[in-house]
Each structure stands twice: as structure tokens, then as C-alpha cells.
């Protein structure tokens, strides 16, 4: 997809775009997490805003809908004092036949400083990063099945917040791993940060054996996958998978791979339960677990804003 140089880094190896966690060194990931810690405390102030991106224009380009991700990026940019422009691209220019790069050229002519891009096609944010003006920064907000780096980073922030050190952890990722850009980003981040055991848990149709190549332990048995875990990341079961031949039925799936209090008791007593949202209660996760003491699903949302502030301020501060 790209040449020898990582297109996310400038010649000083500083982050100028966030396109994927893959290929980023632990030092950059840790710098983002440390910076996010600083921004988390901004929420405790009388003035919940800092002037780092004052006068900058951040364009949210969501070619695929996602109200929640778009909103958290918008809040993050506004707390950094940027001007935020939301473009409902899916329903405007592209529908009129304009190509992606023409859209980007037009928006660049409107003096954009940063694009936050969600696209159904893997690699679209790379294409944009390669063709936009040199001073423009690009953040991938989810592309196809490929990557969702800010979700991966906020998951890492959450894990570090509750577990402090990655080097002793067993992390179970449960559900539709093969279609999940979140799972992919989490696996890359956990590997880079030194988590010794990452398990991919789910039925064979959603967790194929060749995932082993990513350095994960594949478990088609829920009990095996959960037992002794420190962190359980539940993935949303996309309804469209249900209609195909991939899964028997929602009820059947919940019985086998849904996280119930009984199954959760197989994990370590202090295990945390995460979920990127939106949650399907009673499909992949029991209501009692969502609302239970081990759930950190809502703190994930809060941390997500701080992590996005960190990413945007770090890339905006680094010259091309």
C-alpha cells in the first residue's frame, strides 16, 4: 500500500498522520497515551478547553455513517479550540459522482488543516494522506476492515488505566474478529506494547485459523478463551452477519459466545470488560455484564475523547 517509508511519520520519525497502529513503535503509542492523560484532566477545569488548535479547521469526512465516532472527534477538536466542519459526504458530493481526490482537492482549497476520515474502503485515508497538501494532517477514523487506530488507542488507554502494565496480561478479544477493524488495531497495539497473550475467541466463520499469523491464540471455545483473562474485549456482532450463512441465529450465538455473568466468572476476578459500542444487549453481551462492576464500557467513551485530543494535537504539532 505504501513505499519503504511509513507515510504516517515525517523525516524525524514524528507522527504527522494517524492511519494505522501497524508499523508505529511503542514509543509513539506511549507518547499518545501519556498525552491523553494530560487531556483527561482538562475535563476537571472550569474552562474545559485548551488553545492548541486555535485557528485550525478540522474537517470530519464520514463517507460511512458513525454518529458516535464523529461526535467524539468533534468534541475532541472543539476542546482543542479548533473549528470543526462536519461533512455528510455519503449524501453529498460523492453521490453526485465526484471522485474522492476531487473532493479532497476542493476541501483543501477551503483551507482545511486536518481531515478525520471514515471510509468503507480499506486504505482510503492513505490515499488522502498521499494526495493532500503537505501541511494537512489525516486521522483515520475507521477504514473498511483494515484499521480503526483511535479506537485501538483508547482501548490501550483503558487497559493501561486499570491494569498499569501490559507485560503480564492475557487479553481475550471475543466475537467477529475477521470483519473487525477494531480487533485488528487492538491486536497490533497489544503486540507492540508487549502483551504476552492475545486470544481471538469466536466461531470458525468469524475467527479463522490463519489469524495465528498475527501472533494470537485462536480459541473456538468460549470457556477456553475466557479462562484466566485479565481483559475481555467484546466486539459488536454486526446484524448483517446474521443474515448470511456465517451464524445460525442470535439466540444460538449468545448461548455459545455471549458474555454472561457465568462465563465472566471464568476470567480473573479483577478482569475488566470492554466493548467499542454500540452494544447489542443479549446478543454478544448480557445486560447484567454491561451494567456490572467489571464493565469499563463507559470510561472507554470518556478516555476516547482524551485520546483523540492527544492524537490531533500531536500530529498538528509536527511539521511535514
Amino acid at each position, binding site marked *: 500500500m505504501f513505499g519503504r517509508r511509513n507515510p504516517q511519520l515525517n523525516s524525524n520519525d514524528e507522527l504527522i498522520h494517524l492511519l494505522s497502529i501497524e508499523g508505529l513503535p511503542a514509543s509513539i503509542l506511549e507518547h499518545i497515551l501519556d498525552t491523553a*492523560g494530560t487531556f483527561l*484532566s482538562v475535563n476537571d477545569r472550569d474552562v474545559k478547553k*485548551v*488553545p492548541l488548535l486555535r485557528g485550525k479547521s478540522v474537517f470530519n469526512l464520514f463517507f460511512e455513517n458513525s454518529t458516535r465516532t464523529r461526535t467524539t472527534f468533534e468534541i475532541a477538536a472543539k476542546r482543542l479550540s479548533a473549528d470543526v466542519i462536519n461533512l455528510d459526504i455519503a449524501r453529498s458530493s460523492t453521490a453526485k459522482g465526484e471522485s474522492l481526490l476531487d473532493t479532497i482537492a476542493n476541501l483543501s482549497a477551503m483551507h482545511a488543516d486536518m481531515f478525520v476520515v471514515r471510509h468503507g474502503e480499506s486504505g482510503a485515508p492513505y490515499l488522502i494522506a498521499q494526495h493532500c497538501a503537505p501541511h494537512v494532517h489525516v486521522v483515520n477514523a475507521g477504514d473498511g476492515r483494515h484499521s480503526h487506530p483511535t479506537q485501538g488507542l483508547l482501548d490501550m488507554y483503558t487497559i493501561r488505566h486499570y491494569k498499569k502494565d501490559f507485560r503480564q496480561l492475557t487479553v481475550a478479544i471475543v466475537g467477529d474478529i475477521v470483519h473487525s477493524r477494531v480487533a485488528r488495531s487492538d491486536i497490533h497495539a497489544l503486540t507492540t506494547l508487549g502483551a504476552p497473550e492475545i486470544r481471538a475467541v469466536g466461531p470458525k466463520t468469524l475467527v479463522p485459523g490463519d489469524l495465528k499469523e498475527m501472533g494470537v491464540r485462536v480459541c473456538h471455545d468460549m470457556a477456553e478463551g475466557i479462562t484466566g483473562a485479565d481483559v475481555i474485549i467484546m466486539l459488536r456482532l454486526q446484524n448483517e452477519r446474521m443474515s448470511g450463512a456465517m451464524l445460525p441465529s442470535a439466540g444460538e450465538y449468545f448461548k455459545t459466545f455471549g458474555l454472561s455473568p457465568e462465563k465472566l466468572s471464568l476470567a480473573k476476578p479483577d478482569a475488566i470488560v470492554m466493548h467499542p459500542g454500540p452494544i447489542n444487549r443479549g446478543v454478544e453481551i448480557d445486560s447484567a455484564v454491561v451494567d456490572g462492576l467489571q464493565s469499563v464500557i463507559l470510561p472507554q467513551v470518556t478516555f476516547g475523547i482524551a485520546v483523540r485530543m492527544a492524537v490531533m*494535537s*500531536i500530529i*498538528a*504539532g509536527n511539521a511535514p
Partner: protein
Amino acid sequence: MTTLDKLDAEALYAELLEGVRALLKPDAGLVGIWSGGAWLAERLQKDLGLPGAAGVISSTLHRDDFSQRGLAGGTAHTKLPFDVEGRHIVLVDDVLYTGRTIRAAVNELYDFGRPASVALAVLVDRGGRELPIAADCAPATIELAKGKRLSLARDDAGRFSFEIR
């Protein structure tokens, strides 16, 4: 004017202690600018017998060179263990130079409330001001060439010295 080789950080600290004592209004709050200023404020808080901990302030989020330096300066947290609103604040730093750090720190302070007053105490004023900012207490004044960097160091025993690079 003190000469560079006679810059004794411990002796200057003793003068700073008396200077800050004179500046303190009742119910004042000490706030040190990270990192050198925070060390000074921590020790002043103890030597002045003030209750609780001194505040620590980071100027990172309000710096005016963000577009050139980014967040490279670090990610120190501002921690203010008291209410800023209506309080007399004594801001403490090791070296006063261009005044830009002080400007950024005062802006940061205002994100937490409106202080009744803000005074500035530093160990050394090295000249070279680029903003209309002055110290209320500065035991030493020196002239230092523009490229030189003067900063405070603290050893394991908590004793201060100066580093010049």
C-alpha cells in the same frame, strides 16, 4: 549583578525563601512551574510551614511555539490542590527569560478560576524579556547569551544547583 560562576543555587534559595515570605498574603497559594519551579515551590511550601501541598503548573497547553515545537516539551500535568478562584497566587519558577513561559502559565492558571492576584518569584532573572513581564522577587540578575540554556537541577538529597548548556 551576579556573575555566572558565582551562581550558588542554595544561597539564592535562602534569599528566595525570605522574598516569598514577604510576598505571601494570608491564605495565599504557591504554584511552581514544572519542572524547576515545582521543585522550588515544593521546598518553599515546607520551609514556610504552609499547610498541604504546593500547586504544580505546566505551560504546555498554552505555549505560543506549539506550531514549531509541537508537544515535544512533555506532557506534565497541572495539579492545583486548592481553589484558584479569589486566591492570592505566588507563581514560582527557576529562571525568568523571555517571559513567554510565564504568560502561558498565567493563561493556564486562569483555566481553573480567577485569582485575586498573581505575583512572580524566580531564582534568577537572566534578562532578554520579550513580553511586559517582571518578577516581584528575583535574588539574582545575570546577563546570559541568547543561545545558552540555564536551568535548575536537583540532586537525590534535594539540593539545588544550576546547569548551563
